[in-house]
């Protein structure tokens, strides 16, 4: 579980410090305010820690450096790592506290004729006993574009689908476990299957994903995107990729979902958090926010809320807790603006 994050000169974040984290953490902001960047850098840290912990042999400092910068590169796909440094600055620094351990990475912009980039990482060497796993659910569903991701990222290493897609694909290849699943997680998966009236399964000679509803099966192109999105989550639970202790990142989970489905999906995310999954989600949806506000108040559970705004080149962050009510954010402002606009259009039509 993340408990502290500090980004210095990372992309648009000149000095970003998030010190209050919860089981569910919400990030909002207009387009181009760094929501996805924030989720992705946290993901790169957690995934590197997970990968290094899974290695049998010890990880040297050089290995750790390669692992983390490689993860940054394939998660962000910049032209060079320098592109991750804030414009006009010469170096960046990323620091995080994850499961009580400190991790950091710093590097300077490569100057002409300087030669090899000097990268300093700490904490990423193999840590026995570290039990961190990370999953990123990107806005696009991956089941229909499975082969495209596999070929472009896996085989040819072409930029396009970043590692949030590729890592997810690798997890979805894992078949359902024959062992036990935590009952509370199984309840969540069953609840989601029930909501969509079927389940995404792997079948046939080609072991392709199919949506099965009663006696009928549908290929992925025939299946609604919202169902696929929910099916991805249930498959991750059923193959034990998503379990207690997992850090789950969701970028715009509302995409392709009807408001009713958004409400159910958000409630399931809340249940996952209660079951021990740490969640970071970036959203543009008032439905997601309203549901979380209600759940936070009902269960008196802290839901830290990070609202990002852009001021010129700078990104500013405001932090609050949804347990105290809906914080100020641009989604409220736009809803209110639309309300006012609709109101006054009606007035004009009434001739007042």
């Amino acid at each position, binding site marked *: 579980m993340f408990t502290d994050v500090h980004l210095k000169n990372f992309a648009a974040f000149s000095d970003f410090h998030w010190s209050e984290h919860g089981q569910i953490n919400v990030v909002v902001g207009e387009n181009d305010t760094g929501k996805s960047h924030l989720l992705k850098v946290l993901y790169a840290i957690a995934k590197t820690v997970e990968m290094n912990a899974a290695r049998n042999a010890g990880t040297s400092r050089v290995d750790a450096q390669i692992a983390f910068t490689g993860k940054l590169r394939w998660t962000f796909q910049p032209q060079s790592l320098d592109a991750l440094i804030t414009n006009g600055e010469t170096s960046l620094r990323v620091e995080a506290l994850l499961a009580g351990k400190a991790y950091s990475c710093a590097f300077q912009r490569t100057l002409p004729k300087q030669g090899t980039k000097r990268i300093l990482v700490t904490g990423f060497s193999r840590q026995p006993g570290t039990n961190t796993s990370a999953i990123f659910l990107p806005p696009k569903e991956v089941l229909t574009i499975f082969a495209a991701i596999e070929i472009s990222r896996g085989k040819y290493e072409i930029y396009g689908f970043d590692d949030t897609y590729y890592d997810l694909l690798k997890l979805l290849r894992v078949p359902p476990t024959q062992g036990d699943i935590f009952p509370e997680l199984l309840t969540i998966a069953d609840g989601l299957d029930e909501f969509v009236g079927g389940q995404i399964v792997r079948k046939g000679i080609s072991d392709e994903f199919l949506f099965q509803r009663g006696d009928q099966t549908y290929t992925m192109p025939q299946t609604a995107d919202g169902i696929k999105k929910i099916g991805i989550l249930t498959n991750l639970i059923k193959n034990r990729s998503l379990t207690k202790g997992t850090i789950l990142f969701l970028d715009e989970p509302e995409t392709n979902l009807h408001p009713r489905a958004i409400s159910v999906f958000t409630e399931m995310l809340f249940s996952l958090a209660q079951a021990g999954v740490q969640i970071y989600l970036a959203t543009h949806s008032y439905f997601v926010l309203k549901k979380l506000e209600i759940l936070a108040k009902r269960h008196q559970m802290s839901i830290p809320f990070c609202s990002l705004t852009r001021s010129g080149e700078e990104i500013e962050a405001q932090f609050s807790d949804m347990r105290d009510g*809906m914080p100020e954010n641009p989604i409220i402002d736009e809803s209110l603006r639309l309300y006012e606009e609709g*109101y006054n259009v*009606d007035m004009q039509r009434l001739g007042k």
Partner: protein
Amino acid sequence: MPVFLDPAKNHIEPGFLFNPPHEHAFRLSDSALADTLFKRFGVHEMDFAWWDEPAQTMNLLEVKDYSTAPFVAEHYVNECAQKATDCLLLLASMWYGLPYGPSVSECVPDEWHTRPVAPPRLHLFFVLKEPPSADARATKDPFGMSALEDKVRNRMRGRIELLKLTPATKLFLMNHRIAAGRLLPITTEEDFVREPEPARTKHPRKR
């Protein structure tokens, strides 16, 4: 001694009629404070107030008719926040023993003399009368009213906390139709004057 509203009568506020739920409802603007604090210092008050004995709750209600006027959200939010803030300051002067406290306590029922600490509770209601077409719009923009409530609540949150009222205070903002559904003691003037439909008599079918 507070000036209580006659429960047998409806009390008019533009666009609305307030139906006192019992004999201990009152308007701060009818009190002796009106000539002193309100007029002299420009203190604003919410429209109606009453004590809910079973729920042990002080209720303050502000109604506003925007059914025939252009709506500016920022203006409405500011107005709600100003009236609620002034009312809370007024009551706080009594709860915290400030100089105007004794004058205020003479104008409100005994149950209001103690700071709400859950219980007693304090509910702040804001009711907005929308134009008739608002229902259709609400289906397209279900969060307009909710966003308005969030805005007023956010504006008031710090003030409520500073007066040590957070655990006991709830703020609600709704349109007049929802208010009627929640059994707030108000009706719109249109609803009041509308003649009840005559009871339909079933005529036996001719065989």
